[in-house]
């Protein structure tokens, strides 16, 4: 079995928790699963974006060995374990770490109910944080007229970085620093969002899976009970990807 599939070969399948998933040569495991509506938990992946492989929530076992589903290439006959109790427990621990490393005050967050991190955590039955809270003191950048940047909720998924580069052609964001010091930086003379080239209509301003980058003056627009994850489980096919708040597509 080769890792790379020759593109002239017909599409074939791999096994995901015992079910055959078809793929097109060049697909990653996550891409192929997503296309057929099979849920592999993810936070830093978005269809149409290059994979980042940073959140590790999509960790799976490929032929018994751990891998990130968003970066592992699909190939014929792979045996992929996804929804096993052990993988789910590992993902829950990752989610708990993400929560304690930031300041996630969901009851006062405008993204609540439309947040991929929050919905993924409830899906994994995360009842509490388990670990000790860091309570980091991170800045809020409210300098932009239309977009708020709250570093306290940023999970460093790099989606805004990739969207700004690849889709908006602007290069507004980057991730700087290492380890616990890693943080999102803004490309502008002052380092402030208000002095950057970001516009509220940019993909980068709309792609954030959490409440770190939020369009202003739309907060709590959708009443509780009608928000994306009030109406759909995060595991429902194609409900996961963030779109601008207030512009939620109705997932089918």
């Amino acid at each position: 079995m080769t890792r790379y599939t020759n593109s002239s070969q017909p599409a074939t399948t791999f096994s995901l928790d015992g079910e055959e998933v078809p793929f097109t040569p060049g697909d990653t495991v996550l891409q192929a699963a997503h296309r057929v509506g099979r849920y592999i938990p993810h936070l830093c992946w978005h269809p149409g974006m290059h994979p980042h492989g940073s959140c590790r929530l999509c960790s799976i076992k490929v032929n018994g060995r751990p891998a990130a589903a968003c970066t592992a290439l699909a190939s014929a006959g792979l045996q992929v374990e996804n929804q096993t109790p052990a993988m789910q427990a590992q993902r829950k621990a990752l989610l708990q770490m993400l929560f304690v490393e930031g300041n996630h005050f969901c009851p006062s967050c405008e993204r609540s109910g439309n947040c991929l991190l929050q919905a993924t955590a409830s899906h994994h039955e995360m009842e509490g944080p388990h670990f000790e809270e860091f309570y980091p003191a991170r800045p809020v950048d409210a300098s932009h007229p239309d977009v708020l940047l709250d570093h306290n909720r940023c999970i460093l998924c790099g989606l805004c970085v990739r969207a700004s580069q690849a889709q908006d052609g602007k290069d507004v964001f980057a991730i700087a620093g290492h380890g616990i010091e890693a943080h999102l930086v803004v490309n502008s003379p002052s380092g402030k969002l208000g002095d950057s080239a970001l516009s509220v209509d940019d993909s980068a301003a709309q792609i954030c899976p959490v409440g770190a980058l939020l369009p202003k003056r739309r907060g709590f627009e959708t009443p509780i009970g009608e928000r994306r994850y009030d109406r759909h489980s995060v595991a429902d096919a194609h409900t996961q990807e963030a779109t601008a708040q207030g512009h939620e597509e109705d997932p089918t």
Partner: protein
Amino acid sequence: MSTAHPHHAPAPPPYPALPRRKLKVATCSLAGCFGCHMSFLDIDERILQLIEHVEFDRSPLTDLKEVGRCDLGLIEGGLCNAENVEVLRDFRRQCHTLVAVGACAITGGLPAQRNAMSLPHILGEVYQQREGLKTGCAIPNDPELPLLLRQVRPLHEVVQIDYFLPGCPPSADSFWVFLTDLIAGRTPRLASGPIRYD
């Protein structure tokens, strides 16, 4: 299918059923808004069913000041001062099973939003610099007042917590599922539906 052998010993008489004792339950609110207690009361008339199985020890419902030996302690609110820590430790000593109820107890919740600021700054803002205050206002300083902690902290960082009931507040149905599971002798489990962080 097996048929009884004539020489088999007769089946023992059924074990006499023990009279079911009511569960002793205590509740309290630390640094919280009492919203979790209100949500608990939202179980409405189901409280009549509940009262068949539980009796309340220390709780705002009984107004007892000290907690006695209990099967179950439900605590809402986080730790913001020394008294909160003392009450929590008392509950841990007295309750067989301790439950952190709601966002404040589980993560510090909204009160923990003060954690990024220094205490002198906050006290000054509230008691001295606030608009409309007379000049010369002082920060309260009475030995009766419990000392504030530098940061609001969740309960599991100070004592062992057995269960977490998330939500701000947890819904009445979460309380109901949790308590009925426990009373029936099942390990309480909230499915992802009732798990909410808002």
